[in-house]
């Protein structure tokens, strides 16, 4: 049996939906950030797979994934800096307690 595009897409779909579930259900900001990481990885797999199977003579998907990995690193660093700053101010990571701007 030849491995087709669909087989790779099934894996990335499962990863994406696990990430969506975690992002919607979790209360801890760090756990939510981990779920976002899953979603971004699923998208990266798709870029690489489409590049390999549909346009094997070009490298667009390959480089998009490469730059996406760099941007994810930047995003994670800033997000974690913000989370640590929030923790310093209100001593919790629970999103339900983060309502100072609301009231």
């Amino acid at each position, binding site marked *: 049996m030849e491995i087709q595009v669909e087989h790779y897409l099934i894996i990335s779909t499962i990863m994406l939906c696990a990430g969506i579930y975690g992002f919607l259900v979790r209360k801890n900001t760090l756990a939510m950030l981990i779920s976002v990481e899953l979603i971004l990885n699923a998208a990266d797999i798709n870029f690489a797979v489409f590049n390999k199977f549909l346009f094997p003579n070009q490298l667009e998907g390959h480089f998009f994934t490469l730059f996406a990995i760099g941007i994810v690193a930047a995003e994670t660093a800033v997000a974690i800096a913000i989370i640590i700053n929030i923790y310093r101010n209100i001593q919790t990571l*629970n999103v339900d307690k983060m309502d100072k701007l609301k009231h």
Partner: protein
Amino acid sequence: MDITFQNVVFLIVAIFITVFSVLTVTTNKIMRSATYLLFVLFGTAAIYFLLGYTFLGAVQIMVYAGGIIILYVFSILLTNSDENINTGIKRGKILPGLISALAGAGIIFFIIFTHNFMPSASANILQEVDMKTIGFTLVGGGKHQYILPFEVLGVLLLACIIGGVLIARKR
């Protein structure tokens, strides 16, 4: 139906990623969640290796496993999460999340299986992209070459370093 080495490896990686990505979002301890995320990222790198993108897999392992997971572990240890991060999540909150995730999965699977992908005839999974091509494409200024995004990404990372230090420093 012949079972090749490629298929066996693919199946193992697929099961590995599925199990650990579900565990990442369901486990009770945040440290375990970060560890399972690390395994999922290793699985993603394995997929890149399977596709012949060796450089991409190496970058994935270096940046994610070497950088991002360390950041997560440090921030988990610096902050004080609940013993069980699933406490306080009501059943009425889990069900809508589960339904929307499964509905999204259903729609995506429907599109994947009804859409007719046309793989290029010259697609050869085992063919590796050589390092010289990647290097010339990354820092070349011509058509289908990526010097501008490369430089912009450098500026973005600099801005991110400064921003991270500014946000996280003690006042």
